[in-house]
């Protein structure tokens, strides 16, 4: 028996209630094209309808914030006449289906968001999450995603300077591919995606429009994957919703747009991403409070027989919308011709109309020819800004108490601690060697360290001695146990990473990757996580300048662990010498800086650690977030390192944040990169080897007395751990591993996992 075909609005992802709202807005029945426009613009991906009211809790203000959330990118004033734009996005669902193109177009999309603001993209970072590599499908995903980022990012000419690599079974059917981009511009060139000036032209720049990516935001990004096996039913029917990227087109588009902005030939500019032309035209019109007429027949197509709804909602890549005055058309056309970028007038800015209540309303009208039949006519702001917002039901998961009670903190080590430690080492170099991390001659600290550090310089920027630092961080293991504290600790971890390159944090962006918001447990995780981020950002005085929410990360009814990714932008005021990094020297004293014991009832909590997770122990509690204690240690380290960056002599020879894997892993990483062993005192408890809580640093100094005196002055605890030297990493009687073993196990871990699958 076949069920009756579902009504059109439901096929487009709209609920019955949403259809009623549309009828109210229009005062009539919508036609099918209009329904299609609402279907994409009111999708979860475009409208943030499940999360928007909760996101309002995040602090967004700061004296240096030039543009906060809601624009294409957040922008801060970095000083010296330079503004820095930053944005993070997810491209999870496309990458699950078509890893190369999904990841590649994720890079392309985020670059457009940044140069839309007038900024030249200067750096990309990619936090990636996959299932365990014992599964052959994961290798296909990892290789596809990494080569997609490499193939697109390198060719388009923006360095990829870092990211994250996490393996956990919860991502096996729904990998996460997040991408952060940072750009810079002379402060006075800041532009916004606004249409203004009745009679001005809307010019489509770049690629032609095809059927790729139709419904990407609604079909793909705003629904989970159904198949219980994840792989097989994944989801051939959804494959045409994945876009295809062309970095060469994007490269020319970047250069053409930046030159248009340099020559002051545009009034406003907007990228085309999710929901394509409809999104770009209604958002620019809504921001400008004007109307726009779009001629659907003027849009250059790459396929025959495309319907107006396909043309309007296609997510074909490498396109931009520029608003220009008619007098500048010839110059714009000539400049685009030089860069071999197609430029086509597809619309006009028109007067808003007055509705029956006397309000001025900018209408988006889709026409068949500029003077032709009106195919669709809707208030631009109703598409862009007026999707219904939902306060969806929330419920703390019933099993969370039991999970929290199942604490691994008192577990005894199984096997030898040596093996436990070696099993936690992984060097992501196989990934980042495939990325151009050096273009523009800015990369002082590239991928594979605590945070990336760049000179604040680029073509067309004023001269500056400053540096900018970037870090992306996440900890789904913490967030699964306690999304509020877990998220707060993740922010702290990120700020600590920046301190290791001497930077002071200035702004946060976030990418909130969660499961199906129609599950009350997921909504609880999401709101708790936002609460934790608000708490940490307020405590550490950090504005959130942008973000992205990716929901429906589920497969076969299983939601991913809550995965808020924090992207942090920091500034180093004077960058004339590289920070010390992990390069300690023979004979240096090794110290632990920051609180030795976690806040809360457990001194060395092991819940949510990499050590426990690797043993299949996923329960327990996470440490408490104590802003003041953290902030003090972080500020001390940032000051110590920033002085080295400014060229001052220092007794500090190395610094490393204690992060995933805990103290023993931090020490082992320093041993691995230097080839120098270390003799460390016996720790208080084996938990101290592997416990994870932020605000602790391993540092090396060649003058322990002087170093300790400075730390004492600021009240930051210091524990002398031992001395650099010898042919092994020895920690009391507990750990004893040869330097060569540490290096080779770390270096080979990732490649061995990838190769073992054959």
């Amino acid at each position, binding site marked *: 028996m076949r069920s009756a075909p579902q009504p059109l609005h439901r096929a487009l992802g709209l609920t019955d209630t949403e259809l009623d709202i549309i009828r109210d807005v229009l005062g009539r029945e919508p036609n099918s094209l209009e329904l299609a426009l609402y279907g994409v613009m009111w999708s979860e991906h475009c409208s943030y309808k499940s999360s928007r009211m909760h996101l309002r809790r995040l602090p967004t203000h700061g004296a240096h914030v030039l543009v906060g959330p809601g624009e294409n990118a957040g922008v801060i004033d970095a000083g010296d006449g330079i503004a820095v734009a930053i944005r993070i996005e997810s491209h999870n669902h496309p990458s699950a289906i078509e890893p190369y193109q999904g990841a590649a177009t994720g890079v392309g999309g985020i670059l457009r968001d940044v140069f839309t603001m007038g900024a030249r993209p200067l750096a990309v970072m990619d936090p990636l999450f996959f299932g365990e590599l014992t599964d052959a499908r994961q290798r296909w995903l990892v290789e596809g995603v990494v080569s997609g980022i490499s193939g697109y990012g390198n060719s388009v000419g923006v360095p990829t300077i870092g990211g994250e690599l996490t393996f956990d079974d919860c991502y096996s059917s729904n990998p996460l591919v997040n991408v952060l981009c940072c750009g810079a511009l002379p402060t006075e060139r800041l532009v916004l995606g606004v249409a203004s000036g009745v009679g001005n032209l809307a010019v489509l720049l770049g690629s032609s429009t095809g059927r790729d990516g139709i419904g990407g935001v609604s079909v793909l990004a705003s629904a989970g994957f159904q198949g219980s096996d994840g792989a097989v039913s994944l989801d051939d029917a959804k494959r045409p919703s994945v876009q295809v990227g062309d*970095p060469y087109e994007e*490269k020319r588009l970047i250069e053409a747009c930046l030159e248009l902005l340099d020559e002051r030939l545009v009034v406003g500019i907007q990228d085309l991403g999710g929901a394509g032309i409809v999104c770009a035209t209604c958002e620019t019109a809504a921001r400008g409070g004007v109307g726009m007429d779009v001629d659907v027949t003027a849009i250059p197509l790459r396929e025959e027989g495309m319907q107006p709804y396909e043309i309007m909602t296609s997510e074909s890549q490498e396109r931009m919308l520029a608003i220009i005055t008619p007098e500048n058309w010839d110059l714009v056309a000539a400049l685009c011709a030089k860069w071999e970028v197609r430029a086509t007038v597809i619309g006009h800015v028109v007067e808003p109309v007055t509705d029956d209540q006397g309000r001025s309303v900018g209408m988006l009208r889709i026409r068949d020819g500029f003077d032709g039949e009106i195919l669709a006519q809707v208030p631009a702001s109703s598409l862009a800004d007026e999707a219904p917002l939902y306060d969806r039901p929330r419920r703390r998961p019933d099993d969370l108490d039991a999970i929290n009670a199942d604490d691994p903190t008192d577990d005894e080590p199984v096997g030898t601690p040596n093996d436990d430690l070696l099993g936690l080492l992984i060097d992501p170099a196989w990934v*980042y060697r495939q990325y151009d991390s050096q273009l523009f*001659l800015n990369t002082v600290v590239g991928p594979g360290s605590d945070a990336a550090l760049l000179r604040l310089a680029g073509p067309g920027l004023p001269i500056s001695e400053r540096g900018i630092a970037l870090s992306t961080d996440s900890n789904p293991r913490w967030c699964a146990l306690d999304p509020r504290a877990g998220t707060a600790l993740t922010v702290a971890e990120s700020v600590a990473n920046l301190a290791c390159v001497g930077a002071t944090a200035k702004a946060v962006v976030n990418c909130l990757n969660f499961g199906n918001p129609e599950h009350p447990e997921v909504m609880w995780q999401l709101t708790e996580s936002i609460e934790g981020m608000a708490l940490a950002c307020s405590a550490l005085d950090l504005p959130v300048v942008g973000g992205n929410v990716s929901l429906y990360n589920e497969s076969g009814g299983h939601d991913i662990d809550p995965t808020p990714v924090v992207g942090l932008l920091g500034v180093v005021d004077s960058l004339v010498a590289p920070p010390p990094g992990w390069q300690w020297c023979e004979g240096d004293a090794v110290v632990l800086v920051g609180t030795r014991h976690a806040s809360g009832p457990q001194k060395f909590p092991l819940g949510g650690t990499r050590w426990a997770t690797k043993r299949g122990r996923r329960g327990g509690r996470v440490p408490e977030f104590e802003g003041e204690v953290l902030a003090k240690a972080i500020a001390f380290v940032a000051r110590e390192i920033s002085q080295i960056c400014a060229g001052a002599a220092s007794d500090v020879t190395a610094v490393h944040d204690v992060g995933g894997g805990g103290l023993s892993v931090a020490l082992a990483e320093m041993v691995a990169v230097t080839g120098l062993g270390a003799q460390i005192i016996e720790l208080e408890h084996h938990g101290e080897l592997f416990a994870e809580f932020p605000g602790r640093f391993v540092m090396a100094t060649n003058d322990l007395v002087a170093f300790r005196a400075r730390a004492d002055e600021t009240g930051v605890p210091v524990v002398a751990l031992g001395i650099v030297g010898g042919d092994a990493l020895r920690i009391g009687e507990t750990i004893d591993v040869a330097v060569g073993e540490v290096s080779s196990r770390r270096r080979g871990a990732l490649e061995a996992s990838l190769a073992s699958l054959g």
Partner: protein
Amino acid sequence: MSRIGVVVFPGSNCEYDAAAAVEQLGDRAEFVWHTRTDLEGLDGVILPGGFAHGDYLRPGALARFSPVMAAVERFAQGGGSVLGICNGFQVLVEAGLLAGALQKNRGLTFLCQPTTLVVSSTSSILTRGATLGQELVVPINHFSGSYTCSDETYNELNRNGQIVLRYLENPNGSRNDIAAVANRLGNVVGLMPHPERAMSTLLGSADGRVLMESFLGLTGAPSFLAH
């Protein structure tokens, strides 16, 4: 002060970096758009890294047909200094200004990493200021950087001192560790590593200066062409 033209194809991306290296050493760099057909007044030409014309077909295959390349060929024939870095090397090889070919890296992945180069001939515009056997740390950044050529060509290059840099540890499978080759006269050189990325210890290495200073004639014998 020398005037150095930095050729810009659509898809080039290291043009700013190459120009910065020239200007850091006190000379003047100017961008030469790929449609230009004369190089009058220039003292040298750099073809920078990147993905000229998107590297469609294969790296350099389309760029050799850009109008500027006929001018580069005339410039080289007249004894002018021409340096191809990375994609620029690939273009020079495709254009027939240098011998051999560049194929995909042995490991079939893109590689961005530091390498140690060994100067194996000082009879070129790029190495005239270096010393034989000198080791230089300079990064590579390429997918198709594995140099190959026939035995006959290799023997000839080797005999004439046209193999000017070799990798200490071969990262990409290049024949006989070749990192850079010159033409017979030594005035046209191509290399896969990026000397412009190794101009400052702040960025990890300043060894690229040795090569850039040679190219700009700031060091080394001006009369090396006479050999």
